[in-house]
């Protein structure tokens, strides 16, 4: 009599290590930032209640006050949300324009050495000039409404797109280039089938950085102009002048949370598009 051994549970042996690895990874990615957040809140409380006496507590109201006075107050919360909507529009439009200009500019530079030599220094300068000083001028030139806010946003968010895309296009492996050269591939073919796909990871890395900057840019213009429909910038400016610390912190937290959300969104998008063949965690 022969007994056949039970078939090995193929799926299970294959699946288990994978899921264990995944859940461990998820916990290791989530726990440290949460601990840091708790630490920050603790320090915040210490500063509010121990460092500052009651008269000066308005300089840094304790965290729960930020929530009760701002986030849970329907009027204030409503104001912040409406402002966030306007700021989000400016940030997203500005980011989209920065991505288009940045990629187009970098492609032009990668195709012609003279374009790179004559224009790249200005991309660097654009990043180095104190844009804050230019903001009022931009207001005078373009009016103080959405277009001017978007221009400020683009100016702040543009550089990472340009430099990352250019770096990606130029860092194509020499052997791969020669492979195309041997087939006498046209410049356009090399760009579309080799350089651009190879640059995608760098482009997405640039988008993530630009996304965060776009939020800052959308706030900065509005903060200085304080005209037209108030976005988060005007709101922050108002709260500052009225010394409404709790509301001020609430607006700042909202702005940074929004920045984090689009940072994560572009990180996710990058993984969706190139994560299959490119390992972002490798660098």
């Amino acid at each position: 009599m022969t007994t056949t051994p039970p078939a090995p549970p193929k799926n299970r042996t294959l699946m288990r290590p994978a899921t264990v690895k995944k859940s461990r990874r998820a916990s290791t990615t989530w726990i440290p930032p949460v601990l840091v957040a708790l630490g920050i809140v603790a320090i915040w409380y210490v500063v509010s209640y121990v460092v500052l006496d009651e008269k000066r507590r308005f300089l840094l109201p304790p965290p729960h006050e930020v929530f009760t006075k701002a986030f849970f107050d329907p009027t204030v919360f409503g104001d912040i949300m409406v402002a966030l909507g306007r700021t989000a529009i400016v940030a997203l439009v500005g980011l989209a324009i920065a991505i288009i200009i940045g990629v187009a500019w970098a492609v032009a530079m990668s195709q012609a050495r003279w374009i790179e030599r004559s224009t790249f220094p200005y991309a660097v300068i654009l990043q180095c000039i104190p844009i804050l000083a230019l903001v009022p001028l931009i207001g005078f030139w373009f009016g103080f409404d959405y277009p001017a806010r978007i221009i400020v946003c683009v100016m702040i968010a543009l550089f990472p797109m340009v430099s990352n895309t250019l770096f990606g296009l130029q860092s194509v492996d020499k052997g791969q280039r020669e492979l195309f050269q041997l087939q006498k591939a046209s410049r356009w073919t090399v760009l579309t089938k080799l350089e651009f796909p190879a640059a995608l990871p760098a482009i997405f890395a640039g988008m993530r950085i630009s996304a965060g900057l776009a939020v800052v840019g959308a706030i900065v213009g509005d903060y200085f102009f304080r005209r037209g429909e108030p976005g988060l910038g005007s709101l922050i400016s108002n709260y500052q002048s009225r010394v409404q610390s709790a509301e001020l912190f609430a607006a700042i937290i909202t702005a940074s949370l929004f920045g984090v959300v689009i940072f994560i969104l572009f990180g996710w998008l990058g993984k969706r598009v190139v994560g299959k063949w490119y390992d972002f965690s490798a660098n």
Partner: protein
Amino acid sequence: MSIAPPPVASATTTDQLLHFEDVAMTFPNGTTALSGVNLTVNRGEFVTVVGPSGCGKSTLLRIASGLTPATEGVTEVDTSRIGYVFQDATLLPWRDVQANVELLAELNGRPKKERQRTAAEAIELVGLSGFEKHLPKTLSGGMKMRTSLARSLTLDPELFLFDEPFGALDEITRERLNDELIKLFTEQQFAGLFITHSVSEAVYLSTKVVVMSGRPGKIVDTFEVEFPFPRDPEIRFTAEFAELCGKVSHALREGHH
């Protein structure tokens, strides 16, 4: 009634797939990489070039492929019918095996159906059937090289140029790929010009071993290899094989002042 004679390979000029006469290469910075190189590769030949590193072996191949023109001498080669296998597999990481193998045919504007067919054939020839949908990052070094080989095979080249393709692989993988390369060489009937720094690989693979000296690279000696094809892996352990390897090594050492 006359019967057409069978196509016998004879030493006519059309059988000369590559011909170098007094080829020299001096780089713009003044270094002379090659000087006075005379080399011919005929149909049915598999020529390996061994030499110390930096002797201009790779430059020789780059001139043959047309990537870098020689600064002196005559080079005759039909670059439209060559396959080039690089030191690295140079696969496009965003394309799976099938799409990578199709690349060259795609760049040559071949229709999609034909491309898919030739790619499937080439993938089968190099033993990668079943891995069509795999991305390069999931492949081993040897499999990447096979993919690279398959990619070049799709163009049905008359002359294959190999730039130390197996240098980065482990011994066992390298020997296995050597055997498969010999199989491809005998079945597909391309000629080969193969660069390596391994003497035993050179002797095992080729019909002719060319030894180069250190910079500036010159051909110092040529050895005919008489072992029949397809080669029996066991010849590696014969006395004749060892003797020939010894001769090549001596020539290498003498050329390397």
